[in-house]
């Protein structure tokens, strides 16, 4: 399912960022995702304040050399994956 661009993603209860041995991770029930580069930039912005559209725009700016459409579809795909894992709520 494609996230609504005006919705505000935030980490679901019990899901949080952590660090172990210099590796940033997203921790959730019985699972951990390693976060690097783009995935870290996305998750850090899932704070209930950024809209999906804002996350896309900010990352397109950071990764200015990448094709904007690809950045957008990658972000939407990753957010959908996190929602399926129940790591995100969208308000």
């Amino acid at each position, binding site marked *: 399912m494609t996230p609504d661009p005006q919705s505000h993603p935030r980490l*679901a*209860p019990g899901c949080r960022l952590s660090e172990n041995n210099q590796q940033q991770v997203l921790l959730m029930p019985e699972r951990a995702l390693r976060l690097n580069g783009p995935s870290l930039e996305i998750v850090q912005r899932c704070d209930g304040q950024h809209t999906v559209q804002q996350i896309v725009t900010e990352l397109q700016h950071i990764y200015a050399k990448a094709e904007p459409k690809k950045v957008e579809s990658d972000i939407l795909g990753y957010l959908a994956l996190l929602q*399926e894992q129940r790591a995100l709520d969208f308000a």
Partner: protein
Amino acid sequence: MNSAPAAPTNPLALIAELTHRCPLHCVYCSNPLELQSRANELDTQTWSRVFKEAAELGVLQADLTGGEPLARTDILELIRAARTSGLYVNLITSGLPLDELKLDALLAAGLDHLQLSFQGAREETAAAISGTKSHAQKLRVLQWLKTRRVAVTLNFVIHRQNLDQLPEMLALAESSSATRVEFAHVQYYGWAFANRDRLLPNREQLQTSIDFFKSAQQRLSGKIRIEYVVPDYYAKYPKPCMGGWGRKLMLITPTGEALPCHAAQIIPGLKFENVKDRGLREIWEMSEAFEKFRGEHWMQEPCKSCDRRTQDFGGCRCQALLLAGDAAATDPVCSLAPTREKIDAILAVANNPAAASSLIPPDWLYRPNPASQ
């Protein structure tokens, strides 16, 4: 050709069996038949050190379990210690010792995730399977959880006696605040192995349950994360047990022995180190028990030259011991195992009602509470 043993990967999870005391007496309990008494349980200080060492070793998740972890009077300190060490704190509980005050205290101490067990969707089933009136209390816990911010998993333990209640179980989950549901078919070790003839489903029941789980996963995608485990007796190839011996996780018993899995103590001739005597890193990297079935040097044929050996690691050592009498043998579940016929014989009984009724033991073997001994 034997390859040189690789340096062990870091464990990702620590299973902290805080106690074997428990108000339930579930007939499928994964604790060993020899339960450890309260007198020898590790103290708060030792567990705190273990959590710290685990985080230093790279562990990300602690599963606080038992028995019933809430039976520990120091559970708040233990949660705090695990959380401040940098671990994600999972609590695996029956919910029986909870009230709202205690629940709030657990959350304030830093609990990340509460996994609540269910023995069925109805009080009669729960009472028969756990030997305790327990279902109503779990429903109360579900109500309290609705107004609190914590990750919640409902774990339904599935077997022949409650398979017909899957739709009711799912409805219960949907009416709760749980964002994760585990449908866990019983795994046959410990008490479950002793009660197996009354628990193992037939082929049709198993397939119906799988179809149900898959359809539920689709329907509830994005709303509830549904996971399920099936009894591996019906599989063609064995499960990669624990993600491989000594590869992904470490279990500490109530008295401090470090094990590669719940059942490992049934394997004869293995020496298990105790966290009271040694640091976690040393145990993980070098202890005899953890090294015993790492890599491929220990494998027999057909595993030794099988393409699947890096995928399933030859299956489960404890199962090989239980059913083939040899912990180094190919897991009898494997269709390539010379001992597969033992599994087939068990399945034949489960799938033949006429034969089954004459062989099922008359009574459940209920798991006792070591606190009362």
